[in-house]
């Protein structure tokens, strides 16, 4: 990503299989590449990665639709409450 200098970077569950130290290294790398000219989309299962790569916006996908959007605090709420309350809302 650093070498290719993309305008739009998609990170698809890059955190899967990483231990906490590796997660921090990856997050530091991504943070070093944040730039006013670049858009970044981080796809993740867990809130943990977002402790290190702090997003501007969080969107929750359920059954092929975005059912809720918010700021970084939405990720924390999901960590506490899980996804079920949103799945019921979507159905």
């Amino acid at each position, binding site marked *: 990503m650093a070498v290719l200098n993309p305008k739009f970077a*998609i990170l698809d569950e890059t955190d899967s299989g990483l231990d906490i130290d590796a997660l921090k290294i990856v997050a530091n*790398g991504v943070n070093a590449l944040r730039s006013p000219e670049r*858009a*970044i*989309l981080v796809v993740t299962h867990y809130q943990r990665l977002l402790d290190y790569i702090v997003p501007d*916006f*969080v969107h929750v996908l359920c059954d092929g639709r975005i059912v809720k959007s918010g700021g970084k605090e939405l990720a924390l709420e999901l960590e506490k409450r899980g996804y079920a309350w949103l799945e019921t809302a979507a159905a």
Partner: protein
Amino acid sequence: MAFVEINNLQAAVGGKPILKGIDLTINPGEVHAIMGPNGSGKSTLSSVLAGRETYTVTGGSVLFDGKDLLDLSPEERACEGLFMAFQYPVEIPGVTTSYFLMAAVNAIRKHHGQEELDAMDFLKMVKEKMALLEMDKTFLNRSVNE
């Protein structure tokens, strides 16, 4: 005009609808996170944006920097500045990371009418980037994703 504009995007795999109308706008400088339970369509969304052929787009549109993204091949998308880090990257034994990255960089430079980098210039550039990311230089001589 927004930088990335996804409108009512719908996609299916093997005839089964996975994405059922995604609307999302991303501006330069912004970091957006997509979260969701297993099977919600997270990876499908990434794959459709990158242009993976397993998925069929059944409706909606994606504009990227004023261009119709869905109309471009995966290579063209990459040349226009789209990048994707995979969840399960493919190993390419026998091809070094250095060689692989140089080919990618030069394909993009060529697309923009820029002169291709030679091995010396490329190595200098890549080492600066690795220092930025505090990466060990031995990665360059390893095979891709080994």
